[in-house]
């Protein structure tokens, strides 16, 4: 009789038991598929994504062109895949750059405190005051238009809010008893910051990183539009969506819809994976209160 016959599990309210389990594998599959497509398709399909074909203008999706063709007769599927390559690169790398810089600066300021902190935060103020666009323009202008300058310019202009959030959270964490315990245990400032404080703000920083990915992708297309990013005829998801606006109003949906999906589905998959990760690093994950 040691183990009761029926132990009731108290499922957390509102959490459907189904669906949760699917989230991780589905997202992982999407991300894997995206990565595969991005790496392989340009190798396997040696087509010119820029070649226009005026006679094939705006064909609805068909077998020959599964995603249809755009207003100058380019294959939308092919361009989506090429565009995804560029956009993912821009989105992910820029988001990572911004998050890493933001977290590092915020953590340094918050963990050290005092005058250093104040100086750093005023510098952050300076940075956030110069219009993003202008800063971006400047950075891109220092290089030739292309993917990397865009990545750098988006990354370098978007770390500010992460830095502020990280710092503010650290300030609040800094006075906890467990930090005292670590200090008394001989931990250096650096160790306190990295081992005890930083993990506490990782969920926030991770959230910022994920949100930055789609943001960076459209930022790229905005820069393109000013003539400072990728040339607008080169396939990037932002460019394609930007380009296809007029076509949509004229009633042809496919040149917009597919790049849109290509942008959103991987974003959601990444977000979902990041969500799983955030839950995992939350110490309460397994036994989160069921209420």
């Amino acid at each position, binding site marked *: 009789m040691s183990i009761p016959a029926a132990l009731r599990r108290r499922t957390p309210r509102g959490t459907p038991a189904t669906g949760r389990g699917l989230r991780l594998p589905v997202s992982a599959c999407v991300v894997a598929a995206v990565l595969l497509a991005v790496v392989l398709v340009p190798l396997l399909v040696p087509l010119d994504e820029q070649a226009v074909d005026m006679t094939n203008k705006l064909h609805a999706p068909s077998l020959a062109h599964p995603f249809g063709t755009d207003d100058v007769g380019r294959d939308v599927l092919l361009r989506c895949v090429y565009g995804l390559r560029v956009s993912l690169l821009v989105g992910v790398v820029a988001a990572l750059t911004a998050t890493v810089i933001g977290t590092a600066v915020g953590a340094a300021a918050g963990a050290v405190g005092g005058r250093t902190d104040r100086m750093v935060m005023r510098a952050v103020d300076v940075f956030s005051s110069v219009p993003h666009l202008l800063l971006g323009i400047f950075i891109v202008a220092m290089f030739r238009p292309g993917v990397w300058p865009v990545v750098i310019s988006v990354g370098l202009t978007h770390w500010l809010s992460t830095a502020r959030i990280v710092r503010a959270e650290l300030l609040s964490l800094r006075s906890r008893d467990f930090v005292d315990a670590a200090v008394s245990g001989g931990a250096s400032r650096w160790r306190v910051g990295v081992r005890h404080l930083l993990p506490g703000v990782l969920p926030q920083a991770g959230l910022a990183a994920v949100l930055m990915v789609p943001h960076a992708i459209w930022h790229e297309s905005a820069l393109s539009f000013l003539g400072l990013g990728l*040339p607008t005829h080169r396939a990037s998801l932002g460019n394609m969506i930007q380009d296809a606006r007029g076509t949509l109003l004229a009633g042809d949906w496919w040149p917009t819809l597919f790049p849109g999906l290509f942008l959103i589905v991987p974003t959601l998959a990444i977000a979902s994976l990041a969500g799983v990760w955030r839950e995992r690093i939350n110490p309460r994950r397994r036994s989160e209160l069921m209420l």
Partner: protein
Amino acid sequence: SAPDDGGGPGGGTDALTVGVAQEPETLSPLLGYGKEGNSKIFDGLLTHDAQMHLKPALATHLPKVSKDGRTYTYDLRKGVTFSDGKPFTAKDVVYTYETILDKKTNNASKSELDAVDSVHAEGEHTVVFRLKYPYAAFAERTVLPIASKAVASKTNVNTGSYNTEPVGTGPYVLTSWRKGEKLSFKANPHYWGGKPKIKRFTVAVIEDDDVRATRLRSGDLDGAILPPNLAKTYEKDEDKRTFSAKTADYRAVTLPSDNPVTGDKAIRRALDLAVDRKAMVKSILNGAGKPAYGPLPTDSPWFAKGTERPHDLKAAEKILNDAGWKPGKDGVRRKDGERAAFTLWYFSGDKLRQDHALAYASDAKKAGIDVQVQAGSREVIRPKVKHDAMLLGNGFPADPDFDLYPTLHSSQAGNGWNNLAYYHDKTVDEQLDAARRSRDPETRKTAYTKVQRALAKNPGYTFLTTIDHVYVIDDKWRGLTTQVEPHDHGIGAGPWWNVQDWQPEK
């Protein structure tokens, strides 16, 4: 849109609201506003009618020109007043022209008045222009709006209030200008040409084509300029009419003479034949335009018939083969180790030029010429045009000289943005000069025909299309027309170019 207190569009026929893409930077003629002759607030000495013929406006008739073609005399209309009630006199005309020509005035188009040596008033109602050299097209320049000396001279020309609170003699008076939103005009009750029937004229500034189209659809606007593919969606709409304004607005590719590839006559001629202009018109312009074979539109009276070139890839290949451009392994032709490849720039953000550039590159590829398309801003492109090709857009309807001279005359090579191909051709230079000096239409016509023929033999530019400007407007007014429009079309272009003369349907 929602019902409202103010007399919104959709209701009466005495108010008109139109949507345009660009907002004027200034409303002062002294800084270039309305220099094409249609400014609503102002009048020029002359103006254009629907056929783009000159007709008198503030002048009583067309100018008297001296024998040597260097003195133009205008008699001014009497009894005209500015909207502030002050009389219009020759002093205003002199003030306007002299201020524009003043070095301190930041007017970027002052070189259009380059020919003017002096301007002076003879009495209250006569103005005499003296030119540095005989210039046949000068009268076309005097459509320029006349500012009020009394008001404008009290302010700073470059930044003063006259830029935003203009006072003119025109059919309309500006009532408000909320920058970024709209300009509102009301009819000038004392207009010398009679009070306009359309009492209120509003120009909404809507940069984005799609938003403009949507706002037109929502009834917010009575009319708007639209890209052809969006205008198409109104075709079946009974209450709306679509106008395709004929223009002199062409798109062309510069083929710089200094580039060993584009400077080669065989390449130039081959490209000229290899491009499929009809396909471009059909797909890029949705039919709203026509093939271009030179700066002058094919329906211009000055156009040299017979200089049209068909799309003929075979012929193009033959020219290249004959000239020694042999296909290489990568499909690109070569001659003496030189690859038939060059870069073509377009202004980023300009979808129309982008599509032209891509189509051009595709067509060139079929002939074995590798054209790399690149995008950039003006600042990026300007230093490159001596060596790289660029997608050009330009065109003035008024006089052939306005287009042909700056584009083709070798003296203009690399001058500002003029003659970007660094084109030089002896015949062309001679004929352009000759046409400029003569005031005899026949002589000029012959000279310009020779110019166009020479250009066809040595096409330093590949002219692609002349585009139409497409307007959609409520079908509430009678007798709407469009003028032949220039490349640059301000708020005065479109079917409402003569809104002051409109009559309601009933």
